[in-house]
Structures are given as structure tokens and as C-alpha cells.
């Protein structure tokens, strides 16, 4: 097993947590491709004290034995566990019997190690059994209790060690220093390790085989500490998100010609003077600069980065002039310009970026006129126009973009008339119309978009009559209709949307227990929100068939926390997020 597996594990963990968070935030209006970006921004941080971790640990574990573990979530017998897997699980159960795994083949001790970590069974004492095991991956990110005393065993893996993750740990400089002889290390992740200083960081400078390095929110990354990166000439992936003192440090990245991915999001001390050191990194494919304090001058240093496929410069404070410098970046597929001071005048510079698949103009000063320049971006799949001044007139420029899968028009000036222009976009899967001007008439124009899986009508004025249109959207997985006009009669038109996993009908004050009864057939539901309705304790039993439910919100209803708790214990074991609680 190589470092790839370890990083896959990490990303899986993250995906799960991000998903749960999304489901909980029923009122969030920004849901789309760039979700993770937004989540990160508002959800404090992914670290010791964040709520992420709590949700993660309360998720039902894989089960109490390996047999169920390999079955996965669905019904049916599933894959048969291999004998190796059964043995690994058995070792975990009897772990007290073992004190030394070093005579085992490496791949087996690695599997035992991973198993103990996955089950939260690894302790400092047990870790000693893995001394000199020639392990390749030590993935202890977010694992409780990791500190310097663990690092000696980590480092004892010596030249075998390929990847280490000690994110969110209390490891200090002396712990980190132990790794300096593990010169084959390819991947090192020390996110949110607030005990590490620039001295500790500099002890890593000899690790020249590292290809992937991550020090999120690390105070050690300073003009001095960043010297450590200068020798890591094989770096392909560098993540320095949220490093608060990074100003002056980017000069040491100048020679890292193999760098393909650089994340500097939320490094809000980065200024134009830092940016010039990025101008020669011509292999960069992904660059994230969201929330850096850079102006149009700073953007000008990106002009020659012709390999860029992804560029995120949201919330940088850029004006139209800055966008001129993007004209030559024709390989761009993903461009995030959200929350900048750009106007229609800027969009002309995007005209030639014909490979764009994902464009975010959230909260920019964009109106109908500018959209004409997007007409030729035929590869566009995701377009974020939330909180712009786009109105119905502008939408005609989008009607030829047949690859569009996701469009966000929330908080725009779009009215019912404009929606007709979208009716031919057969590829649309996700549409956000959270906007008070939209009514039943607008929805009626969209009934041919039968491929929709996500429809957000949160603030739209949809009535029971309008819900008849919802019947056409048989593939809907998520639906929000919270304008206040839906009654039990309208819910009848929703009850057959069997693919729904998320349903938000909150703010519809007339809904009664009858609605709960109607919803009881939507057994795929993972998240349900009926807050601010007349739903009562006596209707709760209708929810028993919703065995997949993980999040239930019934705030400001005639429902008591104790009755929900009873329901949870008696019938809904997967429920992890409950309101009121």
C-alpha cells in the first residue's frame, strides 16, 4: 500500500464530514460545485475544536465486526471478508496479546496499524508494538492523543516511511525533528499543528523527496520558516492554507518548478509583493488564492501561468483591470472570481477561455450585459451567479450553453419570464432559484427539465398549485420549498419523489402531521426539515420508516426534544443530528 491509499482515506473522511455538515445546514442557500470552498470559509476550521470532528466521531462506525464492515451500508450479503481481513480484525480484538509486530511482513503490520487507527484503538502503549515495522503510511491525522512521544516510533520506520499525517496533533519541533532521517518521505501532512515553530519546520529541509506537503494554519510558515521548502525541489503539491504569517515566505517557492498545486487560501497577509514570486511557477495547474490581499497588480504576475486549469481568486478584492491578465490562461477549466469588485466590463476578458467548465461570479457586480461574453463558453457546466444583478434579459445568453449542469440564480433579479430561456438546457441537474420573484408560473416553464436532481426554491413564492410541476422532476434528490405557501395538499405532489434524500419544507406554517404521513414513503431521505410548521409530537411516529434519516429538524414546531429522542432510540438509529435537542 502506497501513500495514495493514505491520502484516499483522508479525503474520504473529509467528504463524509463535509456532506453531513451540508445536510445539517438546511437554510444554506449556497449549495453547488464550489461548496467545499464555502464550507471552509464559514465553518471555522477543520481542527481539534471544530464541530466537524464531533459529527465524524458520532457517525455510526462500520459495525461491531468485520463481517458487517465489508457489507457496506446497503442491504444484501455483500462481499465476503478475506481471511486476511478476518485475521486483522481478530488481532485488533485481542490486541493486548501482542507487543511486537516487527517480525510480520510489512504489508500485514501496515494493515493491523490501519485497523487500529480506524477503530480508534491505537494508544501510545500499543504503538510501541509497531517499532521498526518498516511501515510506509502513518496516517494519524485528527487522531486523539498524538504527541512527541509517538514520533520516535513513527521515525523508527526509517527509510520505508513514505507518508505521515499528524494533523491536529500536539507534536512540537522536537517531535517533527525525528523525521529528518526519513529521507524517502513523499507525503507529509501537519495541518493545524499549533505547537510547531519555524525552527521545527526548518529541520525538514533535507526531505528532498517530498512531493506533497501540507501545513494548514501553521504559524511556523514565516519568511524564515518557509526556507525549508526551498530544497524540496520535487514538491508537486503544497498546501499552506490559512498560514497567518506567510507574508515574505513565498520567495522560497521560486525554484519549485515541479509545483503543480498550490493552496494559499485564506492567507490574508499575502500581498502583491508576495505574488511576484509565483510568476515563474509555470507548471502550476491549480492555484488557490481566495481571501489573499492582492490587487490587480498581484494578478498580473499570473499572466504567464499558462498551465493553470484551476484558479481561485475569490474575495481578493480585484477590479476589472485585474481580469485582463487572465486572458491568456486558456487551459482554465475552473475559475472562481466570486466576491470581487468586477463588473460586466471584466467579462470580455473571459471570452477566449473556451475550456471553462466552472465559473463562479458570486456576488460580483455582474448584470445582463456582461453575460453576452459567456455565450461562447460552450463547455460550461457550472455557473454561479448568486447575488449578482443578473435579470431575466441576461438569461437569453445562456440558452445555448447546452452543457450546463448547475446554475445558481439565487438572490438575482431573475423573474418568471426569464426562466423560459432555461427550458432548453436539458443537461441541467442542479438549479437554484432561491429568489422571491419566482412563482408558480416560472416553475411551470421548467417542467421539461426532467433530469433535475437538485432544486432549490427556498424563498420562491411557490404555492400548492405550483407543486403540481414538481411531479415532473422524478429524479430529484434534494428539494427545498420554503416560501411559506405550501400546505398539506401541496405535499401530496411531493410524496412520490422517491429519489429524494434531502427535503426542506420549513417555514411553511400550515403544514400538519398529515404532511409527515405523506412523507413517510420517502424512505431514501437522509435529511428532513419541517421547522416552523404545525407538526406535533403525535405525528412523529410517521417517520419510523425513514431508516436512512441522519438529520431531522423540527424547530419551532409542537414537538418536544424528549419525544424526538424516544423516536431516535426506538426506530431511527442513523439519526445523528436532531433539532430541537
Amino acid at each position, binding site marked *: 500500500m502506497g501513500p495514495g491509499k493514505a491520502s484516499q482515506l483522508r479525503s474520504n473522511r473529509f467528504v463524509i464530514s463535509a456532506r453531513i455538515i451540508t445536510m445539517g445546514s438546511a437554510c444554506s442557500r449556497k449549495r453547488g460545485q464550489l461548496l467545499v470552498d464555502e464550507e471552509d470559509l464559514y465553518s471555522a476550521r477543520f481542527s481539534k475544536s471544530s464541530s466537524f470532528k464531533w459529527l465524524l466521531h458520532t457517525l455510526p462506525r462500520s459495525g461491531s465486526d468485520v463481517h458487517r464492515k465489508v457489507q457496506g451500508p446497503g442491504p444484501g450479503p455483500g462481499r465476503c471478508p478475506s*481471511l*486476511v481481513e*478476518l485475521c486483522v480484525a481478530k*488481532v485488533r480484538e485481542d490486541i493486548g496479546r501482542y507487543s511486537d509486530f516487527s517480525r510480520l511482513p510489512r504489508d500485514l503490520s501496515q494493515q493491523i496499524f490501519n485497523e487500529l487507527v480506524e477503530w480508534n484503538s491505537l494508544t501510545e502503549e500499543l504503538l510501541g508494538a509497531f517499532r521498526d515495522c518498516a511501515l510506509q503510511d502513518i496516517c494519524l491525522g485528527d487522531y486523539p492523543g498524538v504527541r512527541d512521544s509517538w514520533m520516535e516510533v513513527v521515525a523508527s520506520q526509517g527509510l520505508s516511511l513514505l507518508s505521515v499525517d499528524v494533523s491536529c496533533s500536539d507534536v512540537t519541533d522536537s517531535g517533527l525533528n525525528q523525521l529528518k532521517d526519513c529521507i524517502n518521505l513523499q507525503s507529509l501532512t501537519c495541518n493545524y499543528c499549533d505547537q510547531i515553530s519555524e525552527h521545527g519546520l526548518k529541520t525538514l529541509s533535507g526531505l528532498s523527496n517530498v512531493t506533497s506537503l501540507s501545513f494548514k494554519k501553521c504559524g511556523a510558515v514565516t519568511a524564515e520558516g518557509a526556507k525549508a521548502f526551498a530544497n524540496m525541489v520535487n514538491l508537486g503539491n503544497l498546501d499552506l492554507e490559512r498560514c497567518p504569517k506567510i507574508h515574505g515566505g513565498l520567495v522560497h517557492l521560486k525554484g519549485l518548478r515541479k509545483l503543480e498545486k498550490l493552496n494559499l487560501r485564506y492567507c490574508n497577509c499575502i500581498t502583491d509583493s508576495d505574488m511576484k514570486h509565483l510568476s515563474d511557477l509555470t507548471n502550476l495547474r491549480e492555484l488557490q488564492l481566495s481571501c489573499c490581499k492582492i490587487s490587480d497588480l498581484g494578478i498580473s504576475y499570473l499572466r504567464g501561468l499558462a498551465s493553470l486549469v484551476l484558479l481561485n481568486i475569490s474575495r481578493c478584492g480585484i477590479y476589472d483591470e485585474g481580469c485582463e491578465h487572465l486572458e491568456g490562461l486558456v487551459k482554465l477549466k475552473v475559475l472562481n472570481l466570486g466576491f470581487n469588485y468586477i463588473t460586466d466590463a471584466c467579462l470580455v476578458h473571459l471570452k477566449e477561455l473556451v475550456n471553462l467548465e466552472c465559473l463562479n461570479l458570486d456576488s460580483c457586480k455582474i448584470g445582463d450585459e456582461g453575460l453576452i461574453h459567456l455565450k461562447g463558453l460552450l463547455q460550461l457546466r457550472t455557473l454561479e451567479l448568486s447575488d449578482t444583478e443578473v435579470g431575466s434579459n441576461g438569461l437569453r445568453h445562456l440558452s445555448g450553453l447546452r452543457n450546463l449542469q448547475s446554475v445558481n440564480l439565487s438572490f438575482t433579479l431573475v423573474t418568471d419570464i426569464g426562466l423560459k430561456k432555461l427550458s432548453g438546457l436539458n443537461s441541467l441537474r442542479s438549479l437554484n432559484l432561491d429568489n422571491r420573484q419566482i412563482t408558480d408560473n416560472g416553475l411551470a416553464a421548467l417542467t421539461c427539465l426532467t433530469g433535475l436532481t437538485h432544486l432549490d426554491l427556498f424563498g420562491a413564492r411557490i404555492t400548492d398549485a405550483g407543486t403540481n410541476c414538481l411531479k415532473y422532476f422524478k429524479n430529484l434528490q434534494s428539494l427545498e420549498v420554503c416560501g411559506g405557501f405550501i400546505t398539506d395538499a401541496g405535499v401530496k405532489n411531493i410524496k412520490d419523489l422517491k429519489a429524494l434524500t434531502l427535503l426542506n419544507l420549513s417555514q411553511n406554517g400550515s403544514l400538519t402531521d398529515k404532511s409527515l404521513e405523506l412523507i413517510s414513503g420517502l424512505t431514501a431521505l437522509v435529511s428532513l426539515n419541517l421547522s416552523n410548521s404545525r407538526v406535533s409530537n403525535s405525528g412523529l411516529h410517521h417517520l419510523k420508516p425513514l431508516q436512512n434519516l441522519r438529520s431531522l429538524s423540527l424547530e419551532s414546531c409542537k414537538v418536544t426534544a424528549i419525544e424526538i429522542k424516544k423516536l431516535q432510540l426506538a426506530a431511527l438509529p442513523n439519526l445523528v443530528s436532531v433539532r430541537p435537542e
Partner: protein
Amino acid sequence: MLGKGEAAGQAHLHKDDDGGEQPSGVVKLISAEGFEFVVDKKAAMVSNTLRNMLTSPGGFSETREGEVRFPEISTPILEKICQYFYWSLHYSSGKETSEFQIEPEITLELMMAANYLDT
């Protein structure tokens, strides 16, 4: 399953009911101590290592002679592995619901053998 020379006629490990027996016949697995375990080919092929040996065209001599020697696997471990083969077949067909029992004393040795047999 039975040890070498215990009886004239060799008893075989069989599945309870065998509907469509694709890989027909049996194969003899021989432990380090020389004990022979005769199992259905179908069961032996739960092990990817054995599957490769038994199915690769004209490759291994094992395929022709119908026996495979394991000089590194002791009798009790090989016996346990044969039990696993059948447990696995039953599990996959949905008939097996009980857990596969592993004695703590043999876990590590069994794991190493299972690793070798890719099962």
C-alpha cells in the same frame, strides 16, 4: 479432509449441495508435515494464488498433478484455511451467517498464510 495414510479411501471436503459445479474435481493441498487435504477445486479457488495456479493454461505442474505442496504452512493452519474456503463459499451464497472463528493462538500465523495465498 484426512491425514495421509489414515485410511485407504480418501474422504473429501464437499459443499452440502453442489448445483452447477463449474471447476469440477478436487485438488490435494499438502502441509509442511505432509498431511493431505482434499478439497473441491471450487473451494480452493477462493484463494487467488491457487486460482492462478489451477487456471493458468499449461503453466504449473500443480495443475496436472492436482496437488499443491505448502512446505511453509503447518497442518493446523492449512486445515483452518480449508475451513475458510468453505465458509467463504457459504457466505457468498448467503447461507452462512455465523462468524468465522479464529483462535487467538494462531491468528498471526494464519494471517501470514492467508496473505501468501491471497485469500
